[in-house]
């Protein structure tokens, strides 16, 4: 009887909180979007599933050993932790606050106490420590992305870089938006949080995760989910903005064919880029360094087996762990918050502004150069979201003129956008990190 009762007492059903139900529902929505709507499934399937696992009651899969001791520990272990943390009341709420602010040595001691009482890090917490807390996973993803990126179209027409720069305006405009909402008392973001939210507008998942790990780790879940969700929404969000800001005639502009690019140029480009980053913005060096390393492996032609692995086995493995880890922070008290709503709204605004800035920059460049060399539709590809944004440009170009293939032309600003967001990320970390 006692046993039956214990089964029931410790079952998920008897311990389910409203927050957990809500977050499991959020997880299902992410899985639905990923599987049925094909929203960035490579990330959203693991994130959604990780979110569900993290919210299974009583399982503590996403908690550290100390958190597990807090939630499931008896009076003995809680008493020891209260003494260690200097908690007067001994209430769990107070201890959690004290623990969050404790010195690293105190945290280590708390972990030892928890382990001595049989509480261990949950599996997803271990993944989170290794993949995200260490900063390794976004960097390795970026290495793989570098190994998958062909800078040929950008090298053939380097001025496209300006479109990639302009589209980052969305990032900084969003920071202002977040700051304004705070000033107006609607939301309450610190400048660090505002900066991390702005990066969503960079349309680059790993960059957003990397920045928010450093500037606002408690918002990681909301930011990562927004970033990937909006990257998937590119084909819906961008076209109306692009149509609004361009004339039919502009959309019909046929661009001149790209010049061939030599192998040597492709090999040297990641080195030139690394060189500039090293000299001007060391804060962006880890992210762009790994990106350039991946790209050099791809282009140099002598380490194809490493490049293959970086693009396949390694990036897939890291994606699985990164996705589950991001999912592990989708817990009710961090996610079900007015802030998350603010982040979602600001994120989409960032996106829209970035898209508009790119298109307007393309028009400005035509105006400045006094010609019609650039179809403004490719400006929107400057937000990154490779290769989706470039495909959107191509699609709208074909609508206006069935012979107008913009894909290759749009790949230039598209990959420039990746560089642009990484630079913006470095600036954020440098200024407010």
């Amino acid at each position, binding site marked *: 009887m006692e046993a039956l009762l214990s089964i029931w007492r410790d079952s998920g059903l008897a311990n389910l909180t409203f927050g957990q139900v809500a977050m499991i529902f959020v997880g299902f929505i992410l899985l639905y979007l990923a599987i049925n709507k094909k929203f960035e499934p490579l990330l959203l399937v693991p994130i959604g599933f990780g979110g569900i696992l993290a919210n299974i009651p009583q399982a503590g899969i996403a908690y550290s050993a100390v958190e597990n001791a807090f939630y499931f520990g008896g009076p003995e272990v809680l008493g020891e932790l209260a003494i260690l943390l200097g908690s007067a009341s001994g209430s769990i709420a107070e201890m959690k606050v004290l623990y969050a602010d404790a010195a690293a040595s105190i945290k280590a001691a708390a972990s030892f106490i928890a382990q001595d009482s049989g509480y261990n890090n949950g599996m997803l917490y271990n993944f989170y420590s290794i993949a995200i807390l260490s900063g390794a996973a976004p960097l390795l993803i970026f290495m793989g992305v570098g190994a998958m990126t062909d800078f*040929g179209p950008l090298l053939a027409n*380097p001025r496209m*870089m300006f479109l990639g720069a302009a589209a980052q*305006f969305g990032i900084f405009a969003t920071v202002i938006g977040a700051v304004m909402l*705070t000033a107006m008392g609607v939301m309450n973001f610190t400048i660090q949080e505002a900066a991390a939210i702005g990066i969503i507008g960079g349309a680059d998942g790993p960059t957003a995760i990397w920045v928010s790990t450093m500037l606002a780790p408690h918002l990681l879940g909301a930011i990562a989910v927004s970033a990937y969700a909006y990257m998937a929404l590119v084909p819906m969000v961008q076209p109306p903005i692009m149509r609004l800001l361009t004339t039919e005639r502009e959309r019909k502009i046929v661009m001149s064919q790209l010049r*061939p690019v030599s192998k040597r140029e492709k090999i040297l480009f990641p080195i030139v880029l690394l060189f*500039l980053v090293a000299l001007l913005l060391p804060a962006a060096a880890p992210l762009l360094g790994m990106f350039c390393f991946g790209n050099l492996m791809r282009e140099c032609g002598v380490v194809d087996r490493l490049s293959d692995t970086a693009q396949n086995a390694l990036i897939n493995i890291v994606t699985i762990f990164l996705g589950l880890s991001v999912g592990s922070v989708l817990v009710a008290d961090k996610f079900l918050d007015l802030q998350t709503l603010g982040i979602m709204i600001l994120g989409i605004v960032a996106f829209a502004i970035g898209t508009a800035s790119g298109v307007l920059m393309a028009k400005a460049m035509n105006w400045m150069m006094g010609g019609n060399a650039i179809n403004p539709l490719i400006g929107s590809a400057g937000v990154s979201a490779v290769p989706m944004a470039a495909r959107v440009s191509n699609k709208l170009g074909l609508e206006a003129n069935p012979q107008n293939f913009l894909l290759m032309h749009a790949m230039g600003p598209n990959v420039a956008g990746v*560089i642009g967001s990484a630079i913006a990320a470095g*600036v954020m970390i440098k*200024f407010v990190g």
Partner: protein
Amino acid sequence: MDDIDIITEGFYLLVFGMGFVVVFLTLLVIATSIMSRIMMRFEPAPVPASPRKGHTVAASGQPNDQALVAVMSAAIKKYREDRNGQ
């Protein structure tokens, strides 16, 4: 006061951040162009702007190639499944 502070900080970030992005990418345009010009002097542009990853591109006019790949990918898949199951 806090509100004003954060607004100031936000605008600083906007101005210096966006400015830095533009300056950096401008320098990158210049550096890339110089590099390309030097390289083209050595080697007069052989490889065509690689559609290596061009998914939509295709149109290489070799249906045999496509068919071969299709047959092979299916066969490889089957082979792998058989092997995995052993």
